[in-house]
């Protein structure tokens, strides 16, 4: 069974009363273990697609099946639990919690799952070690570089062993060397832990590494 399958997804925004069709008739499916990049020019609907599949936003029309069950009919609370248990997110602007240190940011996600404190700490430490940022454990986001913050963000996204990690332009704010290293890391997590990654990007470096490439143009799939 597909991990995720979309059926005729549409998303129309209303921009001050003017309808903007951001997604049109998207039919896609993703399987476990994918390392997929959604690419397309600016404004083509990449972020919108990730948000809709990631249960952050509702489609205007269409269905999304996660392991066979339709998530578009789920309540807000259920979606919140779904995101916590099954999804991980990496944002372009890192978006760590500024008042928490690196290790606390990672622990925070586990806390939301109700994992006891002692377990949190050791798991967060071993993950920091794996991502080669152990020495950053007690630094706050504003004491870290962008690349370092994004590594912590990746750690936060994968710590609860999600089915899928959604990463919206994760390298856009990073230089190519740093971005490359971050991609190495995510490739490793994909390989070693079989975590599914779905990116959006128009960064060639990212697109080159994609095992599968999905092209968007004006909200539609570009199937050539």
């Amino acid at each position, binding site marked *: 069974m597909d991990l995720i399958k979309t059926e005729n997804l549409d998303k129309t925004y209303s921009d001050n009363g003017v309808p903007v069709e951001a997604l049109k008739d998207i039919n896609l499916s993703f399987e476990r273990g994918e390392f997929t990049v959604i690419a397309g020019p600016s404004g083509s609907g990449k972020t919108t697609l990730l*948000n809709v599949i990631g249960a*952050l936003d509702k489609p205007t029309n269409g269905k999304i099946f996660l392991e066979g069950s339709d998530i578009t009919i789920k309540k807000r609370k259920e979606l919140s639990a779904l995101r*916590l248990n099954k999804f991980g997110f990496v*944002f372009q602007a890192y978006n760590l*919690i500024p*008042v928490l240190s690196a290790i*606390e940011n990672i622990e*925070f*996600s586990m806390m*939301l799952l109700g994992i006891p404190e002692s377990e949190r700490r050791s798991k967060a430490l071993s993950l920091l070690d794996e991502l080669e940022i152990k020495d950053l454990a007690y630094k706050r986001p504003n004491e870290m570089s962008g690349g370092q913050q994004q590594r912590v963000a990746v750690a936060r996204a994968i710590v609860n062993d999600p089915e899928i990690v959604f990463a919206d332009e994760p390298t856009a704010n990073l230089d190519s060397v740093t971005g490359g290293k971050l991609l190495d890391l995510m490739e490793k997590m994909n390989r070693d832990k079989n975590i599914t990654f779905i990116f959006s990007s128009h960064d060639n470096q990212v697109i080159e590494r994609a095992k599968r490439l999905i092209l968007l143009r004006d909200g539609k799939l570009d199937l050539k």
Partner: protein
Amino acid sequence: MLIKIAWRNIWRNKRRSIIVLSSVIVGIVAAICMDALQNGMLYQMLFNQINLSTSHIQIHKNGFIDNKIVQNTIPDNNAAEQAAIENEHVSFYSKRVITFGLISSANNSSGIFLFGVDPELEKNVSIIISSVVKGKYFETGIREVLIGTTLSEKLQVDIGDKIVCMANMKDGSIGSDVFRVIGIFRSPDSEYNKAYIYVPITDAQNMLELGAEYHELAIITKDYHFAPQAADEIESKLGERFEVLSYDEVLPLLVMQLDMYKEMIYVINFIIGLALIFGIINAMLMAVYERTQEIGVLMAIGMKNGKIVNMIVLEAFLIGLLGTIIGVVLGWVLYKGVLINGIDLSSFAESLDSFGIGAILYPKLSMENLISLLLTIPLISIIGAFYPAYRAVKLQPVTAIRHV
């Protein structure tokens, strides 16, 4: 962990938090001072009355309190004194002859209340001895009179001068006697300075032809809280012919005022809380607005609405609690360091005397108020955070994350 986040969030916008914190602190300190003054004033009024003449318990002939005629003397002195001595709560008592009459000097005359007191016993029961500002307390106990400052001015008499006192005797005819002014007192209650005189009890009994009879046995208990209970015990022992009244029955208005004030504290604290709540709502709304994007991210990674509400409410609660604790400590220090020594109100004393307060006001902190503040203000902070928290969870994750 939520507490940790809430606490750190407080210090992200230091200036805003300190403003809110200061307003809480100022509110609390003001509430403590206002209460200590008001409470002190009411207790002072009550204790001044108790110490001037009311005492804790009065034993009379039944009906005396409503009809203070000279004939209404205690029906059985021994029984009354015995009942007082035997009660475990009683520590002192004093016998008093009480009547009203006329006092005249060479220059003027005035209506007065006359107290005939036992010079030794009265020392333990009332503050009249310590109120003497000129001359002295009874010396020989023969034909001596203590009068108030205002009365001495009106009669134009001084220490050593003679005055004539007239009053109804037991048989209805007029008795009179000459007394020498031995002391002039200034009490905290201007009524006493104007219209009360004290003479030795034996002189009073002679003048009124009372023999050994008297009108009142005034009792001081070890702890005034037990006065009503002790009064009941004594009354049941003495029976119908006597009336035994505790201070709260003699001064119902003052006691009622005090009781009412104790309820007012909650109203006052509520009003202070109401003034503070808007500051808290405002600060938390700003905090939520500033952290819109962050809240969106928290939602995205699966933080439930309940937890987001908790986080925001906790932040407000911690500010409120911190402010309350600092305010209570400051208020306490201010109270212990300054207020407790009394505030000299001599410049307003004229008007305050007529309320029976006195020239120096001794504020008194009430535990009820401290506890009420400790509970109310943090609770109010929580309530103040509800609307901002509601606004936070109303956010859509996507729009919140896009927010800059």
